[in-house]
């Protein structure tokens, strides 16, 4: 649950989920995972405790990127891959706004890959929600940079031959201060993760596994399906040992530099042997390891992998201006006019 801990203003009329539903008809395919992401986002907004007019959703292009049209906030559906750039300019110039970036796996990691790297390393105070359906939805089913190797699609009838990216690994490599994952099929978890992203100061990167039931149906079902979830996903909890399984008897242990799945109670293994999750570790090694754990070898980790503090780009920019004004006084352009050598013609 989100505690409206940051920037919340007193005396705002309580808003409800409905206040965040725009008058636009939602145009996703029935059954698309994007509906769930939209619903959880709308559900979260009233809990943030900030005025609706201070919230902005900025997206690129793709099915996922249509989300801003459905949010009754300020919104900007921009061009393919460039939402992080537009959001950076808005946030850097208006740090008081709450700016959310909505993107897809193609939008963020293919055409917009460069911008994603840089928005993360700069730590611009944004929430970046990546709807990962491992496919190009809007353009009707070509493979994406997160599609698994060998995947057969319209554009890869013989199977893809390019290795996929792991979005969370990319984010960690780009020095992201907040890295999390959730799934469309678990609304409670999603709303909690999005809330954590909001609370984080800095670029908060959230990957959401999103089912595209038209072009890549069931891409994540092997571990997200209700019946198997407990055994095949690892819900990360801060300060808690990494335990999973219906019986809560399986866990992750570090064997040298590699993680391994162990069973508590077998071969003398106890909870104390398991890795304890600490998202605040400055060293990203464990987070990196988690970002690469995938089914079936491992349970798929969801939750917050990393949340560390680093000054934000927008705050540093503001501070530089404040310092300059403090040191030299506010600028007067008339002084600039006469910089350098001047002379008077009588």
């Amino acid at each position, binding site marked *: 649950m989100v505690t409206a801990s940051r920037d919340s203003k007193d005396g705002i009329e309580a808003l409800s989920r409905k206040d965040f539903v725009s008058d*636009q008809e939602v145009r996703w395919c029935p059954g698309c995972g994007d509906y769930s992401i939209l619903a959880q986002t709308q559900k979260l907004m009233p809990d943030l405790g900030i005025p609706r007019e201070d919230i902005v959703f900025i997206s690129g292009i793709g099915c996922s990127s249509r989300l801003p*049209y459905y949010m009754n906030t300020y*919104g*900007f559906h921009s061009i393919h891959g460039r939402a992080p750039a537009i959001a*950076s300019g808005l946030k850097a*110039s208006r740090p008081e706004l709450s700016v959310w970036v909505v993107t897809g796996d193609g939008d963020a990691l293919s055409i917009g890959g460069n*911008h994603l790297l840089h928005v993360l390393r700069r730590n611009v105070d944004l929430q970046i929600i990546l709807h990962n359906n491992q496919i190009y939805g809007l353009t009707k089913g070509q493979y994406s940079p997160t599609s698994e190797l060998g995947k057969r699609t319209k554009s890869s009838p013989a199977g893809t031959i390019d290795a996929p990216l792991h979005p969370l690994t990319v984010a960690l490599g780009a020095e992201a201060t907040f890295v999390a994952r959730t799934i469309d099929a678990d609304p409670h978890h999603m709303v909690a993760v999005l809330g954590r992203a909001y609370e984080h100061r800095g670029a908060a990167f959230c990957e959401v596994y999103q089912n595209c039931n038209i072009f890549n149906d069931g891409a994540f079902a092997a571990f997200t399906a209700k019946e198997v979830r407990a055994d095949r996903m690892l819900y990360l909890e801060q300060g808690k040992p990494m335990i999973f399984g219906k019986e809560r008897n399986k866990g992750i242990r570090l064997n040298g530099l590699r993680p391994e799945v162990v069973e508590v109670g077998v071969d003398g293994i106890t909870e104390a042997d398991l890795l304890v999750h600490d998202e605040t570790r400055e060293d990203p090694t464990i987070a990196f390891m988690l970002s690469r754990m995938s089914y079936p070898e491992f349970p798929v980790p969801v939750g917050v992998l990393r949340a560390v503090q680093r000054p934000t780009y927008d705050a540093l920019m503001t501070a530089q201006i404040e310092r300059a004004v403090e040191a030299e006084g506010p600028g007067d352009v008339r002084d600039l006019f006469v910089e350098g050598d001047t002379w*008077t013609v009588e």
Partner: protein
Amino acid sequence: MTTLTKESQQPEHPELLELDRVTIRFAGDSGDGMQLAGTQFTKTSAVVGNDISTFPDIPAEIRAPQGSLPGVSGFQVSFASTEIYTPGDAPDVLVAMNPAALKTNLADLPRGGILVVNEDEFSETNLRKAAYASNPLEDGSLRAYRTFRVPISTLNSRALKDSGLTAVQIDRCKNMFALGLMFWLYSRPLDTTTRWIDEKFGKNPAVADANKTALKAGYAFGETTEMFATHYHVPKAPQQPGLYRNITGNEATALGFVTASKLAGRQLFYGTYPITPASDVLHELARLKRFGVKTFQAEDEIAAVGAAIGASFGGSLGLTGTSGPGLALKSEAIGLAVMVELPLVIIDVQRAGPSTGMPTKTEQGDLLQAMFGRNGESPVAVVAPATASDCFTMAIEAWRLAIKYRTPVVFLSDAYLGMGSEPWLVPDFESLPRIPVEFASDPATFKPYARDPETLARPWAIPGTPDLEHRIGGLEKSDITGNVSYDPANHDKMVHLRAAKIQRIAQDIPELEVEGDERGGLLVLGWGSTYGVITTAVQRARAEGKKVSMAHLRYLNPFPRNLGDVLRRYDRVLIPEINLGQLRLLIRGTFLVDAVGFNKVAGRPFTIRDIEARIAELA
């Protein structure tokens, strides 16, 4: 040829001759400090009251091998007792600090011109580096010039032998020696430069003293040696009274944009990616933090323009700047700004293309890219400053139009304007008109794509305004509501509205003025940085009695509303451009006027003689 050793036949006191105008080119290795010598000469000339115009010629390679041909750096300054518009076609004086500098610049020196060479550098190695088969100082090939062989390096180190500096440090002062010599030759005082040296090297008194000593030694050398029979005086130019400073186009551009933000009362946000010759605008703006200016060095040009659009969405003045290759990358985002109808200014300091082209060389090759380089019907406003100081005026004008019409405006400067300098009459800030900015605030009447009946601008409703929450984007928008629309009639209407909005600007900009005759004869029509050469060439042709007039476009889209009438009043129209006829294409297409061109694309500004010759063919 004059040499130091030769017994001189010259009178004891050199005579003092008065000249109207002199052009000096300092040329040397990029490590020789020629830009510095040139700018110092310029400042002093301005301070003594000459009209001035400069143009630096900077090597593309930052660290070309010492003494090599690509490593030559030059700085040309013209100073006069009359009003001048260009840094001069050809130098009257060439200062060549080494063989490579001589080799690359000599062709520009007219026969009979003054050539000062640092003879110490004409070693066999240096001659080889400059691809000289024989020593030009010895083989008679300089006979056509008034050549002065000065052992600058030797004289400089002799003057500084007690300075306590290292040999390398001492050698670095030789540009000051050369500068001192030129100050003597043209009767200029040393105090502006000595003051500058004190400021620059204040923390290092030994270096400051050495530079001043070298400067004085150069001056004294001119005075005492019998090498020069004459020295010169260029009297003050009649100038409009007021306070002046020297300014480059890029400085004026940056200053204009900061001033615009103050006139509009809005924060300036500059998103950019470094590129020659536009980077100086970033360097200027990055140091203006206390003016509230925010600069964002983005990961590429796409991000740079994207961030500027984001800032404009938030109510700031979103500015982006680049050169031709970067403008190409920004195309899609500029189209987005056309669609979302937000203010945006794009600076293009044009350079020689295509592709990477010649980064430090000037060209007017991006006009059609600015006009049409986007998908779909995507009209933007285009302005082009005519001189370095006009960059200030047009920067403010670009923002006035961008804000009032909620449109991208391309500001077409070029390498010649950006790097060249001229005196600037410092304006009175209070007298500059304020730029009104109006944000939407009334939820009762707000419609995202309703339009102002006069300007056709849509409302600027910025995040943070209660109850105006709305969504914009690159998908076609329905008239009035701004909802996504695929309706054919709506698209047709919106395409026409966006075009009409830009055309409305014609009612809001000055009419084109003609210099010369009201009608008849030849009209020379130019745009952008060719103003100086065209003006001078036309003045000279008129002085010869030719029926020639000129008009210069600073607004390229839309054109001034009277342009068609003006064009039809003349028998012939000549359009000189440093491209293959881009404005001419627009003029012929728009007005069905059979204009002819002058198109020389050499990476250099036109010379006055170029234009004069073309005029002579037509008038």
